[in-house]
């Protein structure tokens, strides 16, 4: 894909995935990679920023004798996700009308 996902869409993708279930770093990265082409080191700054902005929270759970850090959506994050989804609908329907559906 030669079109690079802007920050807001990357944020939206992460928030949408976390809206379904809480995930830890590696699993989350794998999920995001199914939708957006990113490198493995892309996720940390995104998660850190979302965490600092109060859109995700973290908690630790034991797994195989170590602690795993899970990321969880907050109400602010859910609100932001709703906004991103709405903005994306507006944007994509316009672009789709002119660029999409030609095969």
């Amino acid at each position, binding site marked *: 894909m030669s079109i*690079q996902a802007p920050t807001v869409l*990357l944020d939206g993708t992460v928030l949408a995935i976390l809206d379904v279930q809480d995930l*830890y*770093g*590696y*699993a989350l*990265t794998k999920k995001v990679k199914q939708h957006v082409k*990113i*490198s*493995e*080191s*892309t996720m*940390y*700054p995104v*998660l*850190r*920023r979302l965490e600092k902005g109060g859109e995700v929270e973290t908690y630790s759970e034991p797994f195989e004798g*170590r602690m*795993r*850090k899970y990321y969880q959506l907050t109400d602010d994050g859910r609100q932001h996700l709703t906004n991103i989804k709405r903005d994306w609908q507006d944007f994509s329907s316009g672009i789709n009308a002119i660029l999409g559906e030609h095969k």
Partner: protein
Amino acid sequence: MSYLNDVETQLYAMPREERDEILAYYDEYFTDAHLTDEQAKQKFGTPKHFARRLVADYYMNTENTTELKPKNQIKMIWMVILAILASPVILPVAILIIAILIAIVAVVGSVIVTILAVLFTILIIAIVSIVSGVAIIFSSVTGGIFSIGIGLAAIGLLILVGPLFIAGMRVVFNGFASLIKWIGRQFIKKGENYEA
């Protein structure tokens, strides 16, 4: 894992808290991904390279540069410059970037030196006037008082404009830091260049 240990030794330019967070994240990540040191190196580059990228990411994501102490800002600028130079760009572009960076550093540096020189000059004038004023006050009362007066006026001027100049210097420096971050963002895009 020795790969992460090597990365850690290269992260000295980052505040301790951030460094611990980031290492914990990748420690867990590598364990979950079952990456050996060799595989980690293939995916993320050499420890040094990876560490530079982490530091550059961190400083470019720190929204407000003024939150950082000047010492950390200089570190930040240096790290971003290193990251730009380490990212694979075509040679002419690299030469252009380096030329622009050198020009910017020269301009900012000369402005700062000029400001310091002006302040220093005023201080010297003040000291010389007061000392010579005291020296001649016994042979010429009016001349001595006049000279001391000039010296005191110069100190007054210094107190008045000094903070202004220092503030101006900070503005120039912060602008410079923001500019470097901006240039960094243009060339170091979301880790794309680092995809193995």
